[in-house]
């Protein structure tokens, strides 16, 4: 079990580093086991360092940087241990436009093996989906499903767009 843990940890760390560089366009990220503890008991520290910045503990990162780092770690886990489906509920809320596009590029690598259900208010994410499912409460307090296509979205919202870089 020690061997299995070490192998999985290394595979996860490698995937995390690669996906982080892809998501941030550089920099580096790694998982570090707590010093001086047995590898089967030690906690896990996350070190992330966006390009050009000094490596620091993830807590010092900004809201958007933390979200993108967590998503990268999630995808690293999906790479090491694929899951048949993945549900993400408004994970793009704190991302700016440039990072939403990067997040969507990351997903592309995984849709072959994993089915994604993504709840979002963000048009960039909606545009990228293979299928859109709408939920409405035309009757107050009662949820119903409606079919939505992208043209509906464009018409209903008018000019000002939701997000900027």
């Amino acid at each position, binding site marked *: 079990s020690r061997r*299995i843990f070490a192998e999985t*940890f290394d595979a*996860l760390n490698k995937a995390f580093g690669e996906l982080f560089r892809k998501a941030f366009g550089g920099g580096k990220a790694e998982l570090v086991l*707590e010093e001086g503890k047995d590898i089967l008991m*030690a*906690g*896990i520290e*996350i070190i992330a360092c966006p390009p050009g910045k000094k490596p620091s503990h*993830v*807590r010092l990162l900004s*809201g958007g940087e*933390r*979200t993108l*780092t*967590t*998503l990268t*770690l*999630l995808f690293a*886990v*999906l790479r*090491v*241990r*694929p*899951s*048949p*489906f*993945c*549900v*993400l*509920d*408004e*994970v793009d809320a704190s991302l700016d436009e440039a990072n939403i596009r990067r997040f969507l590029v990351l997903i592309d690598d995984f*849709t072959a093996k994993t*089915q*994604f*259900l*993504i*709840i*979002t208010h963000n048009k960039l*994410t*909606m545009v*990228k*989906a*293979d*299928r*859109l*499912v*709408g*939920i*409405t*409460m035309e*009757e*107050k*307090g*009662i*949820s*119903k*499903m409606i079919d*939505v296509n992208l043209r509906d*979205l464009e018409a209903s919202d008018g000019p000002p767009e939701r997000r900027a870089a």
Partner: protein
Amino acid sequence: MYLKRLTLHGFKSFADRTAFDFSGGMTSIVGPNGCGKSNVVDALKWILGNQSPKEMRGSEMKDVIFAGTTTRRALGFAEVALIFDNEDRRLPTDHAEVAVERRLFRSGESEYRLNGMKCRLKDIRDLFTDTGIGQESYSILEQGKIDLLIQSSPVERRVIFEEAA
């Protein structure tokens, strides 16, 4: 293996029977604040065997039963059904489709069915344990929880990691 059809009836704000057909790739669920998007995620967690009212954002499990609106009376039950496509036989049964159902009555009685046959919760959980489709799993990221992994302590992170390893 993927999620094919999720049906809610009397579950939270879904007073009327509502079915969601999903396909592979990326599906985006959209709609205004409060319309019932996260309730769909709760339904998914519930049908996979989640037993914690807090995970259902309530204080007791009965909170998942439609509580009524100003124009509709409360219902006496909540029911969710999920059909998996199991062509790839990832779920250890011989069926090409696997159907799971869960019902809760206001009296507190519960009912579970697997491919139409009454069963226990344990049977459903056993079915899912091996595939990584679990309760605490990394495959469902609830609203607002994205920051939890970063804010958690190294030892708590270890628990999340073990689950995925």
